Protein backbone atom coordinates (compact mmCIF):
# COMPACT_ATOMS: atom_id res chain seq x y z
CA UNK A 1 0.00 0.00 0.00
CA UNK A 2 1.56 3.24 -1.15
CA UNK A 3 1.01 6.10 1.29
CA UNK A 4 2.70 9.51 1.35
CA UNK A 5 2.78 10.95 4.84
CA UNK A 6 3.49 14.60 5.61
CA UNK A 7 2.72 17.14 8.30
CA UNK A 8 1.25 20.62 8.09
CA UNK A 9 1.07 22.53 11.35
CA UNK A 10 0.02 19.74 13.73
CA UNK A 11 -2.04 17.88 11.15
CA UNK A 12 -0.79 14.59 9.66
CA UNK A 13 -1.76 14.24 6.00
CA UNK A 14 -1.86 10.75 4.51
CA UNK A 15 -2.13 10.66 0.72
CA UNK A 16 -3.18 7.31 -0.78
CA UNK A 17 -0.85 6.97 -3.77
CA UNK A 18 -2.75 4.38 -5.78
CA UNK A 19 -5.83 4.25 -7.97
CA UNK A 20 -7.55 1.37 -6.17
CA UNK A 21 -8.02 0.90 -2.43
CA UNK A 22 -9.51 -2.54 -1.81
CA UNK A 23 -9.58 -5.59 0.43
CA UNK A 24 -6.01 -6.38 -0.63
CA UNK A 25 -4.80 -3.09 0.92
CA UNK A 26 -7.24 -2.71 3.81
CA UNK A 27 -5.31 -4.66 6.47
CA UNK A 28 -1.98 -2.96 5.73
CA UNK A 29 -3.63 0.47 5.57
CA UNK A 30 -5.32 -0.06 8.94
CA UNK A 31 -2.10 -1.28 10.56
CA UNK A 32 -0.13 1.70 9.25
CA UNK A 33 -2.73 4.25 10.34
CA UNK A 34 -3.17 2.66 13.79
CA UNK A 35 0.61 2.60 14.19
CA UNK A 36 0.81 6.29 13.27
CA UNK A 37 -1.95 7.10 15.78
CA UNK A 38 -0.44 5.08 18.61
CA UNK A 39 3.30 5.69 18.20
CA UNK A 40 2.97 9.30 17.10
CA UNK A 41 0.20 10.10 19.61
CA UNK A 42 -1.59 11.74 16.71
CA UNK A 43 -4.99 13.34 17.11
CA UNK A 44 -5.33 15.32 13.86
CA UNK A 45 -5.27 13.43 10.58
CA UNK A 46 -6.40 13.93 7.00
CA UNK A 47 -6.75 11.02 4.56
CA UNK A 48 -6.38 12.28 0.98
CA UNK A 49 -8.24 10.17 -1.62
CA UNK A 50 -7.47 12.48 -4.57
CA UNK A 51 -5.57 9.79 -6.49
CA UNK A 52 -8.05 6.98 -5.76
CA UNK A 53 -10.81 6.16 -8.25
CA UNK A 54 -12.14 2.95 -6.68
CA UNK A 55 -12.50 1.85 -3.06
CA UNK A 56 -14.40 -1.17 -1.79
CA UNK A 57 -16.36 -1.65 1.41
CA UNK A 58 -13.55 -3.57 3.13
CA UNK A 59 -11.30 -0.52 2.76
CA UNK A 60 -14.12 1.68 4.12
CA UNK A 61 -14.24 -0.64 7.15
CA UNK A 62 -10.51 -0.10 7.73
CA UNK A 63 -11.07 3.65 7.56
CA UNK A 64 -13.84 3.44 10.19
CA UNK A 65 -11.67 1.28 12.46
CA UNK A 66 -8.97 3.98 12.24
CA UNK A 67 -11.51 6.69 13.09
CA UNK A 68 -12.70 4.71 16.12
CA UNK A 69 -9.12 4.47 17.40
CA UNK A 70 -8.26 8.15 16.94
CA UNK A 71 -11.56 9.33 18.48
CA UNK A 72 -10.84 7.19 21.52
CA UNK A 73 -7.74 9.42 21.86
CA UNK A 74 -9.98 12.50 21.46
CA UNK A 75 -8.75 13.04 17.90
CA UNK A 76 -10.37 13.11 14.47
CA UNK A 77 -9.78 12.01 10.89
CA UNK A 78 -11.09 14.11 8.03
CA UNK A 79 -11.17 13.05 4.39
CA UNK A 80 -10.18 14.95 1.29
CA UNK A 81 -10.56 14.75 -2.47
CA UNK A 82 -13.35 12.22 -3.03
CA UNK A 83 -13.95 11.35 -6.69
CA UNK A 84 -17.48 10.39 -7.76
CA UNK A 85 -17.06 6.60 -7.18
CA UNK A 86 -15.50 7.16 -3.74
CA UNK A 87 -18.22 9.63 -2.84
CA UNK A 88 -20.77 6.99 -3.85
CA UNK A 89 -19.16 4.51 -1.44
CA UNK A 90 -19.25 7.11 1.35
CA UNK A 91 -22.98 7.53 0.67
CA UNK A 92 -23.78 3.80 0.45
CA UNK A 93 -21.91 3.09 3.68
CA UNK A 94 -23.17 6.32 5.37
CA UNK A 95 -19.58 7.25 6.19
CA UNK A 96 -20.48 10.85 5.37
CA UNK A 97 -22.28 10.82 8.73
CA UNK A 98 -19.09 10.28 10.72
CA UNK A 99 -16.37 11.82 8.50
CA UNK A 100 -16.07 15.49 7.62
CA UNK A 101 -15.39 15.67 3.87
CA UNK A 102 -13.36 18.40 2.14
CA UNK A 103 -12.52 19.26 -1.48
CA UNK A 104 -9.69 21.62 -0.58
CA UNK A 105 -6.59 20.64 1.42
CA UNK A 106 -6.15 23.99 3.16
CA UNK A 107 -9.79 24.02 4.27
CA UNK A 108 -9.31 20.53 5.71
CA UNK A 109 -6.14 21.57 7.60
CA UNK A 110 -7.79 24.75 8.89
CA UNK A 111 -10.83 22.81 10.12
CA UNK A 112 -8.94 21.34 13.08
Amino acid sequence: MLLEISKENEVTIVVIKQKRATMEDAKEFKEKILDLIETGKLTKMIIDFSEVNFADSTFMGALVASLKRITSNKGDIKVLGLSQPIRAMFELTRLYKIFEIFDNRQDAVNSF
Partner: protein
Amino acid sequence: MKISVLKEDLHGTNVLEQLQNEIISNAVVSSHIDEDMLCMHVSILLHEMFTNALRHITGSVATFDLTFEDDSFCLAMETDGDGFKLKPFNVSGPETVFLFPRDRLLLKDREITVYNDGESAVICNIEDNSTLIFRADKIGPNVIQIDEFPEHYGLSIFTQLCDSVIYRRTAKDTDIFTLKKKIR
Protein backbone atom coordinates in the same frame (compact mmCIF):
# COMPACT_ATOMS: atom_id res chain seq x y z
CA MET B 1 -23.63 -17.01 -18.99
CA LYS B 2 -22.11 -19.44 -16.48
CA ILE B 3 -18.47 -19.19 -15.37
CA SER B 4 -16.57 -21.14 -12.73
CA VAL B 5 -13.50 -19.53 -11.15
CA LEU B 6 -10.90 -21.13 -8.89
CA LYS B 7 -10.63 -19.29 -5.57
CA GLU B 8 -6.95 -18.49 -6.15
CA ASP B 9 -7.84 -16.98 -9.53
CA LEU B 10 -10.53 -14.61 -8.24
CA HIS B 11 -7.88 -11.89 -7.92
CA GLY B 12 -6.81 -10.73 -11.32
CA THR B 13 -9.43 -12.64 -13.29
CA ASN B 14 -11.26 -10.83 -16.07
CA VAL B 15 -14.54 -12.59 -15.15
CA LEU B 16 -15.69 -9.50 -13.26
CA GLU B 17 -15.28 -7.39 -16.43
CA GLN B 18 -17.02 -10.08 -18.55
CA LEU B 19 -20.03 -10.12 -16.21
CA GLN B 20 -20.14 -6.33 -16.05
CA ASN B 21 -20.02 -5.97 -19.85
CA GLU B 22 -22.77 -8.55 -20.26
CA ILE B 23 -25.03 -6.79 -17.75
CA ILE B 24 -24.45 -3.32 -19.21
CA SER B 25 -24.98 -4.52 -22.78
CA ASN B 26 -28.38 -5.91 -21.73
CA ALA B 27 -29.42 -2.75 -19.90
CA VAL B 28 -31.82 -0.27 -21.42
CA VAL B 29 -31.12 3.28 -20.34
CA SER B 30 -34.28 5.24 -19.65
CA SER B 31 -35.50 8.20 -17.67
CA HIS B 32 -35.25 6.18 -14.45
CA ILE B 33 -32.00 4.32 -15.25
CA ASP B 34 -28.93 6.52 -15.66
CA GLU B 35 -26.16 4.74 -17.55
CA ASP B 36 -23.19 6.12 -15.57
CA MET B 37 -24.91 5.39 -12.27
CA LEU B 38 -25.86 1.88 -13.42
CA CYS B 39 -22.26 1.13 -14.51
CA MET B 40 -20.95 2.35 -11.15
CA HIS B 41 -23.50 0.35 -9.16
CA VAL B 42 -22.91 -2.84 -11.17
CA SER B 43 -19.16 -2.43 -10.71
CA ILE B 44 -19.61 -2.01 -6.94
CA LEU B 45 -21.97 -5.01 -6.70
CA LEU B 46 -19.69 -7.34 -8.66
CA HIS B 47 -16.62 -6.28 -6.70
CA GLU B 48 -18.44 -6.84 -3.40
CA MET B 49 -19.62 -10.26 -4.58
CA PHE B 50 -16.06 -11.28 -5.53
CA THR B 51 -14.77 -9.96 -2.20
CA ASN B 52 -17.42 -12.01 -0.37
CA ALA B 53 -16.36 -15.09 -2.32
CA LEU B 54 -12.71 -14.56 -1.36
CA ARG B 55 -13.61 -14.04 2.29
CA HIS B 56 -16.16 -16.75 2.86
CA ILE B 57 -15.80 -19.73 0.58
CA THR B 58 -14.12 -22.72 2.10
CA GLY B 59 -14.00 -24.71 -1.12
CA SER B 60 -11.93 -24.14 -4.20
CA VAL B 61 -14.42 -22.92 -6.80
CA ALA B 62 -17.01 -20.18 -7.18
CA THR B 63 -19.53 -20.47 -10.02
CA PHE B 64 -21.24 -17.35 -11.33
CA ASP B 65 -24.50 -17.76 -13.24
CA LEU B 66 -25.81 -14.62 -14.94
CA THR B 67 -29.30 -14.70 -16.43
CA PHE B 68 -31.77 -12.08 -17.61
CA GLU B 69 -35.49 -12.15 -16.93
CA ASP B 70 -38.02 -9.49 -17.92
CA ASP B 71 -36.51 -6.19 -16.80
CA SER B 72 -33.76 -7.51 -14.49
CA PHE B 73 -30.46 -9.32 -14.33
CA CYS B 74 -30.05 -12.18 -11.90
CA LEU B 75 -26.57 -13.10 -10.73
CA ALA B 76 -26.15 -16.24 -8.63
CA MET B 77 -22.86 -17.19 -7.02
CA GLU B 78 -22.61 -20.85 -5.99
CA THR B 79 -19.83 -21.98 -3.66
CA ASP B 80 -19.11 -25.00 -1.52
CA GLY B 81 -18.89 -23.12 1.79
CA ASP B 82 -20.20 -24.08 5.25
CA GLY B 83 -23.33 -21.94 5.24
CA PHE B 84 -24.18 -18.28 5.91
CA LYS B 85 -22.68 -16.54 8.95
CA LEU B 86 -25.35 -14.42 10.65
CA LYS B 87 -24.36 -11.90 13.28
CA PRO B 88 -27.31 -10.12 14.91
CA PHE B 89 -26.69 -6.37 15.24
CA ASN B 90 -25.75 -4.95 18.63
CA VAL B 91 -24.87 -8.32 20.15
CA SER B 92 -21.19 -8.72 20.88
CA GLY B 93 -19.00 -11.76 21.35
CA PRO B 94 -17.99 -14.55 18.98
CA GLU B 95 -20.70 -16.86 20.32
CA THR B 96 -23.31 -14.61 18.72
CA VAL B 97 -22.27 -15.53 15.19
CA PHE B 98 -24.70 -18.15 13.92
CA LEU B 99 -24.15 -20.41 10.97
CA PHE B 100 -27.27 -20.89 8.88
CA PRO B 101 -28.79 -23.43 8.37
CA ARG B 102 -26.77 -25.38 10.98
CA ASP B 103 -27.89 -23.11 13.88
CA ARG B 104 -31.40 -22.38 12.62
CA LEU B 105 -33.03 -23.75 15.79
CA LEU B 106 -31.00 -21.26 17.88
CA LEU B 107 -32.30 -18.40 15.76
CA LYS B 108 -35.61 -17.98 17.52
CA ASP B 109 -36.72 -14.84 15.72
CA ARG B 110 -37.84 -15.11 12.15
CA GLU B 111 -36.57 -11.60 11.42
CA ILE B 112 -33.07 -10.59 12.52
CA THR B 113 -31.43 -7.19 12.18
CA VAL B 114 -27.92 -7.81 10.88
CA TYR B 115 -26.87 -4.21 10.12
CA ASN B 116 -27.77 -0.78 11.48
CA ASP B 117 -26.04 2.51 10.69
CA GLY B 118 -28.68 4.76 12.28
CA GLU B 119 -30.23 5.60 8.93
CA SER B 120 -30.92 2.18 7.44
CA ALA B 121 -30.95 -1.40 8.64
CA VAL B 122 -30.61 -4.75 6.94
CA ILE B 123 -33.25 -7.24 7.99
CA CYS B 124 -32.69 -10.94 7.45
CA ASN B 125 -35.88 -12.93 7.06
CA ILE B 126 -35.59 -16.66 7.71
CA GLU B 127 -37.89 -17.85 4.99
CA ASP B 128 -37.58 -21.60 5.60
CA ASN B 129 -34.99 -24.20 6.63
CA SER B 130 -32.70 -23.34 3.76
CA THR B 131 -33.46 -19.80 2.65
CA LEU B 132 -32.64 -16.30 3.90
CA ILE B 133 -34.08 -13.16 2.32
CA PHE B 134 -32.41 -9.82 3.02
CA ARG B 135 -33.97 -6.37 2.71
CA ALA B 136 -33.03 -2.79 3.53
CA ASP B 137 -35.28 -0.89 5.94
CA LYS B 138 -35.22 2.87 6.36
CA ILE B 139 -35.04 3.55 10.09
CA GLY B 140 -33.53 6.99 10.61
CA PRO B 141 -31.98 9.36 10.66
CA ASN B 142 -30.91 8.43 14.19
CA VAL B 143 -27.74 9.47 15.98
CA ILE B 144 -25.22 6.66 16.18
CA GLN B 145 -22.01 6.81 18.19
CA ILE B 146 -18.77 6.38 16.22
CA ASP B 147 -17.72 3.39 18.34
CA GLU B 148 -21.01 1.65 17.44
CA PHE B 149 -20.75 2.37 13.73
CA PRO B 150 -20.60 -0.80 11.60
CA GLU B 151 -17.39 -1.83 9.82
CA HIS B 152 -18.87 -4.37 7.38
CA TYR B 153 -21.11 -3.10 4.61
CA GLY B 154 -21.55 -5.92 2.07
CA LEU B 155 -25.17 -6.78 2.90
CA SER B 156 -26.12 -3.13 3.23
CA ILE B 157 -24.71 -2.36 -0.22
CA PHE B 158 -26.40 -5.40 -1.78
CA THR B 159 -29.80 -4.59 -0.30
CA GLN B 160 -29.58 -0.89 -1.18
CA LEU B 161 -28.59 -1.48 -4.80
CA CYS B 162 -30.59 -4.62 -5.61
CA ASP B 163 -34.27 -5.45 -5.77
CA SER B 164 -33.76 -8.91 -4.31
CA VAL B 165 -30.99 -10.48 -2.20
CA ILE B 166 -31.40 -14.15 -1.33
CA TYR B 167 -29.18 -16.84 0.21
CA ARG B 168 -30.07 -20.50 -0.23
CA ARG B 169 -28.46 -23.71 1.02
CA THR B 170 -28.92 -26.46 -1.51
CA ALA B 171 -29.62 -30.17 -0.95
CA LYS B 172 -26.10 -30.91 -2.21
CA ASP B 173 -24.63 -28.66 0.55
CA THR B 174 -23.62 -25.74 -1.61
CA ASP B 175 -24.36 -22.07 -0.90
CA ILE B 176 -26.10 -19.94 -3.52
CA PHE B 177 -26.17 -16.18 -3.06
CA THR B 178 -28.39 -14.42 -5.58
CA LEU B 179 -28.76 -10.77 -6.52
CA LYS B 180 -31.47 -9.41 -8.77
CA LYS B 181 -31.60 -5.86 -10.09
CA LYS B 182 -33.71 -3.95 -12.60
CA ILE B 183 -31.73 -2.74 -15.61
CA ARG B 184 -34.54 -1.76 -17.98
